[in-house]
C-alpha cells in the first residue's frame, strides 16, 4: 500500500476559534521513504461576544487562522519514523470592521512513530492491516505574550504559540483490500501550564476515512471521504487556582472530503472539512470550515 494515515493534535478556544496548535499528518506516502514538504491550512470560525453591559447587543466576530508549515519525515529502520513540524501562523480577528493581526513562528513539534503491526508481504489474503502509534513533544517556541496583555480581548488562542510544552500521542489503524481502504485514527494531546498559568484543554482528535486507490501509469490518485470528531476539554485561565473557563472546549463532528495524488516522487494533497454537528464553547463559537493543502517530495 502506498499510503498510511495519521493525525495528531488539535486546538483550543476562548470566545474565538481554534488555535495555536493544529497538526495533521493526513494520508502519508510510502512508509519507508523520507520526505519533506510544505502545508497550508486555513481555518475559519465565527463567534459571538456578549457584552457585560445589558445595553449593548451581542457582537459577531470572525477569526481566520492561516498556517504555512514545513514538515518532514525521517525513517529509522523499518519500524520507526521521526516527524518534525515548523509552523508559521498568521491569524486575524475581525470585530466591528477592525482587523487585529497576529503572526509569527508557531510551536515546533517532534513526533516519533512506531509501526506496531503491518501485514507481511508474504501473506496474500487480499486483506492488509497496519497499526502504528507514537508520542511527541510540542515546544513553546512560538510567540506568546500571555493572558495579562490580552485581558480586554480575552483571546489567548489568537497567538502563534501556546506558551506550553505539550505531549501528543497518536494511534491509527488502516485496513484495506485491493483498491479500497478504511482508516481509523485517534490522537490525544496532553497540555501543560504556560508560565503565566494559562492551560489549554487537552484534546482528542479522531477520524474515520474511507479511501480508494486509482492508478494511471505513474500517477496514483487517492480520493477519500469520512468524518472527523474533535473533543477539547475546557481551558484554565489560571490552572493553579483552578479557574476553569467553561466558555472553551467542546465537540465538533465534521464531514471530510479530500484527494491526494502522487507522480513519481512528488505528492499533492487537498482536503476540506465541514462541521455537521457542534457543541462548542457554550455555543459562542461556530467552526465554519477548514481547508488543507500541501505538497511533499519523497527523498
Amino acid at each position, binding site marked *: 500500500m502506498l499510503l498510511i494515515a495519521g493525525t495528531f493534535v488539535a486546538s483550543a478556544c476562548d470566545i474565538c476559534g481554534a488555535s495555536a496548535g493544529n497538526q495533521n499528518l493526513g494520508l502519508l506516502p510510502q512508509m519507508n521513504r523520507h520526505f519533506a514538504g510544505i502545508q497550508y491550512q486555513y481555518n475559519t470560525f465565527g463567534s459571538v461576544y456578549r*457584552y457585560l453591559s445589558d445595553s449593548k447587543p451581542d457582537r459577531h466576530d470572525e477569526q481566520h487562522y492561516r498556517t504555512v508549515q514545513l514538515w518532514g519525515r525521517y525513517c529509522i529502520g523499518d519500524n520507526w519514523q521521526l516527524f518534525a513540524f515548523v509552523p508559521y501562523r498568521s491569524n486575524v480577528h475581525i470585530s466591528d470592521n477592525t482587523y487585529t493581526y497576529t503572526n509569527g513562528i508557531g510551536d515546533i513539534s517532534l513526533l516519533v512513530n512506531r509501526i506496531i503491526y503491518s501485514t507481511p508481504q508474504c501473506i496474500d489474503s487480499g486483506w492488509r492491516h497496519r497499526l502504528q502509534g507514537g508520542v511527541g513533544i510540542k515546544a513553546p517556541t512560538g510567540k506568546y505574550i500571555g493572558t495579562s496583555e490580552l*485581558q480586554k480581548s*480575552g483571546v489567548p488562542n489568537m497567538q502563534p504559540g501556546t506558551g506550553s510544552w505539550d505531549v501528543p500521542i497518536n494511534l491509527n489503524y488502516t485496513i484495506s483490500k485491493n483498491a479500497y481502504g478504511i482508516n481509523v485514527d485517534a490522537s490525544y494531546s496532553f497540555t501543560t501550564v504556560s508560565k503565566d498559568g494559562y492551560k489549554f484543554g487537552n484534546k482528542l482528535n479522531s477520524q474515520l476515512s474511507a479511501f480508494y486507490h486509482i492508478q494511471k501509469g505513474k500517477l496514483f490518485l487517492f480520493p477519500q471521504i469520512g468524518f472527523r470528531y474533535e473533543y477539547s476539554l475546557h481551558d484554565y*485561565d489560571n490552572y493553579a487556582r*483552578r*479557574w476553569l473557563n467553561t466558555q472553551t472546549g467542546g465537540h465538533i463532528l465534521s464531514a471530510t472530503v479530500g484527494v491526494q495524488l502522487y507522480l513519481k516522487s512528488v505528492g499533492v494533497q487537498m482536503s476540506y472539512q465541514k462541521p455537521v454537528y457542534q457543541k462548542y464553547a457554550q455555543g459562542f463559537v461556530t467552526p465554519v470550515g477548514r481547508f488543507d493543502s500541501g505538497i511533499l517530495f519523497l527523498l
Partner: protein
Amino acid sequence: MNWNRTISLTITTIMMLLSACQKKADTEVKPDDVTISIASPASKQIFHKGDTVKVNADVAYTEQLHGYIVTITNTANGVVVFETEGHSHSDHMAINETWVDTLNTSTELELTVTAVIDHDENLKNAKLIFNCQP
C-alpha cells in the same frame, strides 16, 4: 503481537481521558468581598467643556473577575453619556478609561464602576458624583 490487548488498552485509555472530570474552583461567590477603589475623578470634582475626565480605579477580589463596566450618567435625566467595559482573566483589574466632556450645560454626573464577577449577574458597584460646567 497481542493484537486484541493493544486495541482494548487503547480504547480504554481514550474513554478514561474523555470521561475525566476537570477540577474547578468551587468557592462561594461573595460580591461584598470585591473592593473597588476609585482614584479619579474625585467626588464633587468640577470639569469644564473640553476637559478629559480620567477614570482610574482598582478592582480586587479573592477569586477570578470577569470584567468591568464604567458608566457616566446624567443624574437629571438618566441619560448615559459614556459607557465602556473590559474583560479580565485575573483577580485584579486596573481600570484606566477616559471621557472628554462635551456638555453645554451645567450637569451633575454619576460615575459607576461595576465589577462583574461571573456570567450569573454577580457584580458590585461603586459610585461617585462629579460635575461638568460649560
